[in-house]
């Protein structure tokens, strides 16, 4: 035992073992993803850039101005401007300050009509702070940009209906929320499909 220990010490066995490992690694495939040129797949439900879902029928957002998101937001970065017009609340502007956002997606969960979403888009850095303050127009534009890139025809965010929670706790609109069609044509097709289903 003693002799063996001395031998390993003199012959630098452990250093040669390390060298052998690094040599092996030298000829194995590297794990680098060369980011701007190639991108890794983002998993569904990644909490990225904010967007307001554009309703394919009305072409506008679905926000009803209930202020749930504003209240739940821990960093208080959502501001909703509303106005009472003919006894009806109308949302004039919807502002998210993304530079203050902590990306907890509480707003997405709280929204009773699934109007808001944190998309899987993560490339939206800006040279000025202004670029990170999204108003309604910008949020809808974010959605268009995102939906153009999205591979499927439908989109459904997993935080709209957090799984594992009893659906009876959700409001009706949330409970009945299905995947959002990304284009107008798709919507019609789906309706046809639904009609055909019973027959």
């Amino acid at each position, binding site marked *: 035992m003693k002799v063996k220990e001395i031998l390993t*010490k003199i012959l*630098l066995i*452990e*250093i040669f*073992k*390390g060298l052998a*490992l*690094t040599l092996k*690694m030298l000829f194995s495939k590297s*794990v680098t993803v060369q980011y701007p040129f190639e991108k*890794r797949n*983002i*998993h569904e*439900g*990644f*909490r990225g850039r904010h967007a307001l879902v554009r309703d394919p029928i009305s072409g506008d957002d679905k926000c*009803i*101005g*209930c*202020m*749930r998101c504003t*209240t*739940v*937001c*821990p*960093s208080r970065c959502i501001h909703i401007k509303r106005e009472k017009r003919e006894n009806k*609340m109308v949302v004039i502007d919807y502002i998210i300050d993304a530079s203050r956002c*902590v*990306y*907890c*997606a*509480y707003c997405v*969960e*709280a929204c*009773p009509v699934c109007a808001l979403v*944190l998309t899987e888009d993560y490339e939206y850095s800006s040279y000025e702070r202004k670029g990170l303050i999204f108003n309604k127009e910008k949020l809808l534009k974010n959605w268009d940009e995102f939906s153009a890139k999205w591979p499927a025809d439908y989109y459904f965010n*997993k*935080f709209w209906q*957090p*799984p*594992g*929670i*009893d659906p009876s*706790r*959700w*409001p*009706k609109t*949330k409970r009945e929320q299905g995947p959002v069609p990304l284009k107008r044509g798709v919507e019609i097709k789906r309706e046809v499909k639904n009609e055909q289903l019973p027959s």
Partner: protein
Amino acid sequence: MNPENERELLINMGPQHPATHGVLRLVLEVEGEIVKRCTPYIGYLHRGLEKLAEDLTYVQSLPLTDRLDYLSSMVNNVGFCLCVEKLLGINVPERAKFIRTMLSEMARICSHLVWIATHALDIGAMTVFLYAMRDREKLLELFEMVTGARLTVSYPRIGGVRCDVSNEFLKKLERFIDEFPKRVEEYETLIDRNRVWLKRTKGVGVISAEEAINWGLTGPTLRGSGVYYDVRKFFPYDAYDKVEFDVPVGKNGDIYDRYKCRMLEFRQSVRIIKQCIERLPEGPILADNAPKIRMPASPLKIDKEDVQFEIYVDDKSVEDFIKKFTDIYASVEAPRGELGFYIVCDDSAKPYRMRVRAPSFVHTGALPRLCEGGLIADVIANIGSIDIVLGECDR
């Protein structure tokens, strides 16, 4: 500095030093290469999280805890949730407990991987850094898959977890932990028996068991000195009393023993995750009486006065309980040590005062004890071995 002693040199290490793990600033008084005095200055990352929590409801405070120890945000979240659950008397369903345990251990592996990476890099073994990062990337991807974020997960909920894990995730996790022990061996080939590593770590930064307790050290830093203490064993939370695992304990209390403890914890974490996957029960993932984000049918209910309270706690019994002026402490075994949350509550849905017992803060306090009398290079090794994260230390 004492002007009479002209042999001493005052060195300001940090806050932008590459090896101080963030923004720790150390003022070293050195004589040649020997450190005579070492004074840590902290607070460069102070964001007032404890004060912020006083203005947020319990549910809203949860994302704040992500930012404590950002390398293992899952464990912080669990710690906070445990404390609030204790306060509100919520029983977490079995499945949620197992999921929490599983993800906590994933966070522990993640955090220890960053530790081995930076610790080895500080001592000069650059390659270990990238090997560890390679494996951490896989874990972060798993985190992303289930929680929607890589680092600041905000995954647990008061009374359970946020969303369920998928079978695909479990399969991927299983594949990862099957090959992970081999990776740990890889790091060990490079550093564990390497004479340079042994020379740098053995007999350096020694702290005896008694002293370690007196300094308030916890976690692997304490266990390296031979003290058998682990919150997971002594005050079991979540599913830790239902899984089998050992707590590795060192002997000499030097950097090498602390290193060894963490290396063995990798294997124990793998063991725990394996058991969690095997025994993951079916069932709900959120307790029935958990404070939840309630979604009323009428959107104009918002005009009511105590709106925050209305939203988060709609259970009358919980409301009654919270009305009592009480205080509560709960702790978890974070990768760095015992992470405790102490909450004093009044009759609102917000804490009256929240205090975080951060292991990094306590460990930074013991840094002068470890460094003084050693060499400058030992300071770096010591910072690595107590594994501090300044986000947690400064809060």
